[in-house]
């Protein structure tokens, strides 16, 4: 393991990030993506030290605004903010009185008046983060907007691959399952293409959106041929309500044809790694035998990388924050 970076090194690495908001993985060019990953990589080492705290974001306020509940992503952002020295406030408008009759914009404008510096937003509607960014004075980070994007997830996935393989460029990655409803898939296709990986999308036709063949990804409907020779198999979560005859006939039929087990995984390249954005439906899209094998599964690493990747995004955006008039 490399020696953990000191504060000065991290500061020196913090480059002037050109974007005010982080809404879409498609906003990043190859250089920006590589720099973010480099910065995040340093934070991984920092996070393994007993003293994890920096003061890069000292005095800053990070507001987590989660219209859709998510323990995992919210705590990841919370930790990321705290480790950088920011004050972090968690808001769940759904459960607070704030939501009653108030629109997304009203809520955001109200919170904006409290002068947060960074607003982390998750919402069930595609485009919600972009809409918010037009109405508030702070930086907006998209923590998932409907079926559109989840760019920090793509970043942490790329970081996990980078640490496992030493590179992302040149890898072949199969994203498997419910691509149709997945913001993780959309962000990953975009970022992986930017980073020079080859992407395949694998799933039943009912779960692959029309026109996805023009995203810069190969489409496969058969899991075995879809993961043949790939370096990374990224499984997506299949929502329970989508299994009961609407888009696939049943969970057991889905697992039989598109669920990943050790036998099907044999089609992938030797040394292939398995990923999943979580939370997993064990026995539906992935077999526990595969998910829990530390030699092939990167799933726990992904969670760890999540904090580092989000620290990199927060630090980069904060670096270009200025006092508001």
């Amino acid at each position, binding site marked *: 393991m490399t020696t953990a970076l000191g504060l000065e090194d991290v500061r020196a690495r913090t480059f002037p990030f050109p974007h005010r908001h982080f809404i879409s993985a498609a906003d990043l060019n190859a250089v920006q993506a590589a720099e973010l990953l480099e910065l995040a990589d340093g934070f991984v080492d920092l996070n393994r030290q007993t003293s994890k705290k920096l003061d890069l974001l000292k005095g800053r306020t990070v507001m987590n605004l989660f219209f859709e509940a998510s323990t995992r992503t919210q705590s990841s952002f919370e930790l990321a903010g705290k480790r950088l020295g920011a004050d972090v406030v968690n808001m769940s408008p759904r459960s607070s009185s704030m939501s009653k009759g108030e629109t997304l*914009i009203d809520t955001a404008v109200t919170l904006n008046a409290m002068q947060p510096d960074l607003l982390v937003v998750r919402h069930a*509607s*595609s*485009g919600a983060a*972009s*809409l918010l960014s037009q109405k508030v004075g702070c930086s907006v980070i998209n923590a998932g907007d409907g079926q*559109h994007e989840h760019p920090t997830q793509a970043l942490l996935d790329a970081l996990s691959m980078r640490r496992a393989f030493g590179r992302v460029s040149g890898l072949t990655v199969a994203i498997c399952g419910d691509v149709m409803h997945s913001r993780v898939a*959309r962000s990953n296709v975009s970022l992986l293409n930017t980073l020079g990986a080859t992407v395949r999308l694998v799933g039943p036709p009912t779960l692959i959106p*029309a026109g*996805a063949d023009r995203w810069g990804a190969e489409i496969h409907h058969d899991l075995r041929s879809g993961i043949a020779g790939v370096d990374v198999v990224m499984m997506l979560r299949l929502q329970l309500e989508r299994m009961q005859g609407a888009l696939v006939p049943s969970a057991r039929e889905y697992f039989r044809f598109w669920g990943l087990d050790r036998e099907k995984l044999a089609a992938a390249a030797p040394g292939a790694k398995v990923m999943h954005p979580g939370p997993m439906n064990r026995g539906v899209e992935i077999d526990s035998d595969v998910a829990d094998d530390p030699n092939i599964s990167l799933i726990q690493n992904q969670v760890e990388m999540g904090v580092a990747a989000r620290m990199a995004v927060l630090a980069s955006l904060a670096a270009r924050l200025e006092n508001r008039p």
Partner: protein
Amino acid sequence: MSKPRPQAFINARLVDPESGYDGPGGLVVAQGSIAEVRKGSDFQGLSEDLQVIDCNGAMLAPGLVDLRVKTGEPGAETKETLKSAAQAAAAGGVTSIVVQPDTDPAVDDPAVVDFILRRARDVELVHVYPAGAATKGLKGQQMAEIGLMREAGCVYVTDVDRPIVDSKVMRRLLSYAASFGVLVAHRPADPWLSEGAAATEGEFAARLGLPSVPTVAEQIMLERDLALCELTGARLLADQITCAAGLESLRRGKDRGVRVWASASINHLSFNELDIGDYRTFARLDPPLRHEDDRQALIDGLAEGLIDVVVSAHTPAPAEDKRLPFDEAAPGAIGLETLLPALLAFHHDERIPLVKLIRAATLAPAQLIGLKTGRLTAGAPADLVLCDLGAPLIVDADRLISKSKNSPFDGRRLQGQVLMTLVDGRIVHRATE
């Protein structure tokens, strides 16, 4: 109100969709009607006591007839009232509007028809004609009182944006309406495929993660409607054809003699799905904006006459209904004030001859619902628009008259400024400056 003095419009570019004339000329307006039409540039021998208006080569054409206008009256007057809609229409050179029945209460009862006509009379600006609901409460189950509503003054029946799903109801509706000679307008959209959709299925919508509908949803319902129309001998207006697949079915229907007419909205002629851009909710329409191929096919369809009528599909939605995430935002766009200049774009691009464009927004809709307007002929009502065809215009939504400002044309550069609008010989709009 005092009787206006007879007026003579001279040195105009007359565009008459009935005779197909597009050339120099002028006309005399007296007692609310067109008294005389002169083609050419000789205006000798006009009576002395006429008020002469020199048009300086501007286009003088029949006022527009818009078959699809929503207001919020009754029930949602904050969106738009009959008065504000009529003012917007006058400013846009639209002299007749057909208001849609999906109000609160719905126009499914002769008393509501009466109410609207009375309110419109009080406003006294442009002609307002109500369309009646085809089914009670627009629920698609029981027929509304089509005969009584027609007597009260309805010009056609429709369930507006809600497709009539039950084919048996549709069949009976068409047969029954046919016996009164009432036109039925129906929005062809398969309700199951369209459920929840905010965009057209394809690469772009998938990238944005928006719920989407394939264009065949339009074709599927249109094919059913055409078959039922053929079976019953009714007159059908296919309300807002938007895509190549729909046009293909329409062509086959017309070729085999089905009594079908079709409208296209100016929005679907002017924009494609990419105008949604970064989730611009002013481009959230129902039916959703289509692919560019579909838009091109629609313009060709208008050029060859497959599309009979162009409508504004004026749908006011206040800011609070539009300042929402895309799929939650209210669909629809206002369009009364931008209809004419937006339509003229196809004249300036030399895609469609001027007289043909004007016909689709005047004579064609007028004939469809039995109005005498839409013509420049002695004896026809003096519903007129005078328009400087070449005048540049940058649409500024905030300066539009409509109470709601949801115009997708906001910021667009168009050409064509309405100088004057006349309804029954009365000047109802005159451009300032």
